[in-house]
């Protein structure tokens, strides 16, 4: 079935913020396109979407989109998003991070957001390197690869974003690449539909730093290698372990229905209020505020 093409400009701060900071040919823009198409298919109001990002090339994404956007501190985007989601459980909160952002400095927040299973959609753009700071090795840099801080070779073992997310209890974990932009878009859409912590790893590349150091070629070459080195989950099932070892496995790796954090906390509020016998009185101002804000929005739409 052919999907309808969204007016992508409707979701961008295109008049103000372009051209952007990314290098020509960078994969991050493809992830941006996939995110926007996913949101368009969901038919949700831009007012109800927040994009919270960390620091890095990937983290710059939030400035370009016409949502409620917050560019936070390095590694901490998930913690900022957790507070926002608690305050606004009805909001769709996307969190965009780089591999260093999400897994090195932000690794602790990553596993705990997964463990809590709070309804955030975490998109990790994995280019196997610290792009913004000039090509230092990250927790996903392959062993043996060169980086500006591994001039001989990287001796650290990389870990898998998705294995980590699954082990920590995320309810939805998926992976695709920037070569497979349509698939990525569908995986993001499914992640956003999931009530729970959803992780989508978008395998990308950084031709400017990693590519130059490791002689992996132009963006087109690096794209091609994402195509050649990845297999779908179904195809991977038919491969021997040795064949699978260095492949990027694409698809939905985990999808469970688990209790979601803000929904569980809503029950705590109910229980606490019932116990205090103050159910109605205490809930009233909040309900009024919600009503007022809904009314305001309606008025604006009418104008």
């Amino acid at each position: 079935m052919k999907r309808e093409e969204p007016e992508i400009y409707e979701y961008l701060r295109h008049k103000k913020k372009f051209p952007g900071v990314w290098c020509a040919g960078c994969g991050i823009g493809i992830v941006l396109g996939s995110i926007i198409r996913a949101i368009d298919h969901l038919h949700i109001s831009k007012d109800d979407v927040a994009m919270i990002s960390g620091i890095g090339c990937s983290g710059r994404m939030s400035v370009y989109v016409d949502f409620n956007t917050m560019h936070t501190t390095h590694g901490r985007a998930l913690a900022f998003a957790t507070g926002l989601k608690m305050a606004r459980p009805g909001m769709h909160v996307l969190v965009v991070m780089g591999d260093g952002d999400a897994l090195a400095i932000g690794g602790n927040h990553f596993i705990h957001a997964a463990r809590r299973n709070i309804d955030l959609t975490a998109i990790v753009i994995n280019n196997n390197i610290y792009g913004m700071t000039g090509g230092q090795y990250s927790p996903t840099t392959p062993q043996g690869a060169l980086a500006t801080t591994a001039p001989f070779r990287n001796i650290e073992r990389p870990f898998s974003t998705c294995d980590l997310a699954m082990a920590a209890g995320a309810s939805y974990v998926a992976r695709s690449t920037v070569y497979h932009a349509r698939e990525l878009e569908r995986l993001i859409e499914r992640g956003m539909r999931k009530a729970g912590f959803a992780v989508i790893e978008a395998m990308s590349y950084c031709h400017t730093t990693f590519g130059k150091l490791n002689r992996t070629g132009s963006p087109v070459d690096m794209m091609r290698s994402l195509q050649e080195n990845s297999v779908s989950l179904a195809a991977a099932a038919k491969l021997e372990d040795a064949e699978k070892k260095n492949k990027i496995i694409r698809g939905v790796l985990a999808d469970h229905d688990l209790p979601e954090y803000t929904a569980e906390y809503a029950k705590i509020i109910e229980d606490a209020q019932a116990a205090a016998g103050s159910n109605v009185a205490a809930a009233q101002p909040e309900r009024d505020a919600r009503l007022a804000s809904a009314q305001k929005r309606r008025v604006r739409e009418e104008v």
Partner: protein
Amino acid sequence: MTVTLMQGNAACVEGALRAGCRFFGGYPITPSSEIAELLSRRLPVVGGRFIQMEDEIASLAAVIGASVGGLKAMTATSGPGFSLMQENLGYAAAAEIPCVIVDVQRGGPSTGLPTAPSQGDVMQARWGTHGDHPIIALCPTSVAETYTLTIEAFNLSEDYRTPVILLMDEVIGHMREAFDPDRYGDIEVVDRMTTDVPPEWYFPYDETRAVPPLVSFGEGFRYHITGLLHDQAGFPTYRQDEIEPWWQRVFAKINDNLDRIFMYDEDGIEDARTIVIAYGSTARSAVHAVQLARRRRYKVGLITLKTIWPFHEALIEELAAGAHRVIVPEMNLGQLALEIERVLGRAKVRRVNRVDGELIAPRQILEAIEVA
């Protein structure tokens, strides 16, 4: 409520709830943990939310996120956790997000003297995060004042769109005193500012307003928040003509309102030869020391600071103009004294310090008055 015997940390909780705090994100640390424990029980009852985060970095991040979502929000910690919060404290100052950070000070540095009282975080409260930034820090001297200053902390954070630090100390946090919140029934509570302009005209960092209102996420305004220096719309900028007005505005919003922000008590300073300037639990010893000294016919005045940052230079200069000597007792090696010496000159100031985990006794201050 009637009069109860209440702990300082509990009074902080009562003040926060009264001020409309509806979010707490924190990580346990003595001597502040009672604040988290009590709020975990009390917040859901009023429709608020509590979360114990994985560390203090995440705690303040979540507080900022919740505040952007429209909830009045706070965290509470002690020295080691306050150290971890510094980067996001700077973020809140730069992005101008209202929030309250309670630091119940204990002996430092590092894990230090858990959990003996200290006033060792005075300079960290001012300069702990990198880069120049405006900040407000308040210091209660009693259980009742912990209640009122907690409300003030929330009010100031809303009025000036800034993080506010409530610098308590272990003695104030754990001490119990008779307290009746009904006596403070008329304290005003400042609500989050709203805007009357439509989203297209809304500038979250409007340079024509001293303190532009912060509209919550999800209200249809779709703007950007960043810790990068930003233009009026919140977008990162390197343009001098946009950065300069921002610096001017964020400092002016505090400096032009020193008379409201800088709270203090004065006692008998008109004809005083010696003035004691104290804050926090040390001020309690200072009160006693001044009484003893007056009985011995020394002309002593007392200034008790409730606000230590921003420091009201002009006012302190004026108040201390007639005094021959100024004594600054602190449970640190002389942190606020540095500021007072800067303003009044080193020749005039005498420090009284203690960092062994014990309170400064009235006798210590009295001795300083006698030799002054």
